């Protein structure tokens, strides 16, 4: 753990204000790392003491809300989950790549959110619900363990080269969400949802580059979920769902 007064870190932060005009640029801010300090706290410190105009999203500061995904040393990460003690030298802080910048570190997420709406992102039931809960065996529930943990931070989406190539691609997060329901023993919308992802802009666009796996702050493997959806599409095992 860094002790107080230990080496000052410099954050090289991307700045862009469409209102002010002028090209994007970088500002350098010195930060004194305190024990246990996260990059999000460092940015807050800057906004409070050095430059209140610095814009960035934040909410939970505990890696559960997905607000503060940004590019840190060239890699999409959550600022709150990034500890200063793990960073060295001049730290490059930029918005998530390949998304339109609103201002500074804040990007336009609308297109990312809309991808989810294309895959019927909710449990589909056709039979009327029982009086109590639907039963689900612990081993069936375990299939949801990782895939239901997505926090929609957009790190995978921003790091995917296929998303970059064509904005019509559903992308890793929305496909993971489709798999989350496909893997749920209670879901009865298999065939319908599968049709939505079994297309060129769906699962078949994924070339298993695995950037999504590498950057996911929740250690989820969207690529594996997409491969599983591909198998379901290929073998047409709809009825086994």
């Amino acid at each position, binding site marked *: 753990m860094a002790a107080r007064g230990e080496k000052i870190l410099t954050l090289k932060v991307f700045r862009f204000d469409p209102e002010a005009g002028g090209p994007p640029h970088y500002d350098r801010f010195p930060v004194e790392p305190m024990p246990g300090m996260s990059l999000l706290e460092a940015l807050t410190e800057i*906004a409070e003491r050095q430059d209140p*105009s610095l814009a960035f999203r934040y*909410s939970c500061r505990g890696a559960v809300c997905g607000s503060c995904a940004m590019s840190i040393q060239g890699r999409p990460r959550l600022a709150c989950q990034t500890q200063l003690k793990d960073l060295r030298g001049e730290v490059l802080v930029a918005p998530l790549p390949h998304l339109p910048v609103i201002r*500074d570190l804040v990007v336009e997420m609308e297109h990312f959110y809309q991808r989810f709406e294309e895959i019927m992102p909710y449990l589909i039931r056709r039979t009327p619900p029982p009086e109590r809960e639907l039963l689900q065996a612990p081993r069936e529930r375990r299939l949801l363990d990782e895939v239901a943990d997505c*926090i*929609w931070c957009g790190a995978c989406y921003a790091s995917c080269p296929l998303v970059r190539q064509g904005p019509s691609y559903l992308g890793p997060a929305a496909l993971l969400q489709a798999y989350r329901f496909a893997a749920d023993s209670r879901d009865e919308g298999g065939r319908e949802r599968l049709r939505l992802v079994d297309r060129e802009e769906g699962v078949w666009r994924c070339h298993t580059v695995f950037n999504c796996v590498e950057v996911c702050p929740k250690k989820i493997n969207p690529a594996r979920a997409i491969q599983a959806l591909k198998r379901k599409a290929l073998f047409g095992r709809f009825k086994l769902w």
Partner: protein
Amino acid sequence: MPYHPVLVVGGGLAGLRAALEARFQGVEAAVLSLVHPLRSHSGAAQGGVNAPLANAEEGKDDTPERHAYETVVGSDFLADQDAVEAMTREASERIFELEHWGAPFSRTPQGKIAQRPFGGGAFPRTCYAADRTGHYLLHTLYEQALKYRVKVYVEWAALSLVVAQGQVQGVVALHLPSGEVEAFSAGAVIMATGGAGRLYLKSTNALINTGYGLALAYNSGAPLKDMEFVQFHPTSLHGSNILISEAARGEGGYLLNSQGERFMQKYAPRFMELAPRDIVARSIITELKEGRGFDGAYVLLDLRHLGAERILERLPGIRELAISFAGVDPIEKPIPVEPAQHYTMGGIDCNIWGESPLPGLLACGECACVSVHGANRLGGNSLLETVVFGQKAGRRAAELARAGAFTSNDGPLKKALEKARTGIEELKRGNGNEDPASIREEMRRAMWEGVGIFREKEGLGRAIARLQGLRERARRLRPAHSGKIFNQDLLRCWELPGQLLVAEAVAGGALRREESRGSHFRLDFPQRDDARFLHHTLAHLTPEGPRFEPREVAITRWPPEVRKY
């Protein structure tokens, strides 16, 4: 000007549930949210949600009455018993509904919803989904909102409530990404803006939980209720104050002092680590004060004896948080923990249908005070409150809107819109020299030091004086950034005076209440005093500050008894 029969301010669990219910009632509802709904603080809830499902073997005799009784005892008899009974009666239905919508609850070997013990409960009653229950429920409700096409205004900050002819007309709000200010006309407005944790220096709450939603209602003439009751969670990570769920103790975790002693045996021999939160938090502070902490700042939460398998299965989120934010793997080492502000028991005064005394204004969730938590909330009851009372508020708002109970009038809304726009320009161009960060920091210190876990007259008086001083300084606030786009600096300046008003209501209520009850502990009045204080505190805003008045507690079945764990 956009019009919605029902307009919900806040996109967390309570707000989403309310909006969905209005839709189910055939009334169009929109949600206005400061952040994308999935960024709401509801998602940080970990341990679970209470309902007497009687799914666990040891809980097979559980009933809504038991649940209600324990909630009332937990509240130190300040909860309204009719409201508590309504909540526990409807609990199971709301949980089954969430399950039917796809919430991925953990399961018993028989495939039923799994339940674990929580503080203050004699039965395993807390339905859980690993230790990410809030995350899963929030996603489930948001999925339903997408399915039913609930309109969500994302990243709109409510700036003011518009009241004319004695009723709420709508809301004026700022769109952060564009800087545009707009008025929203509404048949009924439901506040679901969450708690006010960030009035305190140390809080488990998300950074967005400024309490400004409470200020909006308070400023508009709706009274706040029981604000002096603030829950301090015993186990937040030392330093960052990120929550370490009560589930860690529910699963069998120990609290240890520097002598390696399970000190809770001195304070709550029967319930030990699973005594209610107020008791455990005070016990920890006592240990620290008497020199049995670590660095005088924290104690240890030891999970090692649970074994890797149980930790990985039941508490994976806790483990991840401890590793990421404290560099400690709880499988190998105990977690350093300290108490921090956690929950706002008080809130906008409302009945079980969410109706505040201000016509057209409803409230649900943490920003509301029904009251079901009284002087101390039991773990697992907050998520329950969001869905039970979210549903009820949504239903009542829909009824009111459909009946045209409140006619919205464009005139006052246009005037309020102009006023907000002028207000923003004046803030930006003013000659103020105060920045929000330093005032806010002082406010948080004043609250933590004077209105914290242990309180006494002198400290409370000092805190109030400090807050009043800050209110003066806040008149000279000025944002350093004058742009329109995503101007968070401006928003912080806009919200701060309102936060200070809410803080004063908390401190004033605490000074007035010369007794100790639940989370409110007065060193100078260490006993509960039913003769003088078995009542709610209503705070009305006046130009001089809060004016307090008592309100009777609804006692239907359980006369006050000594609370002992």
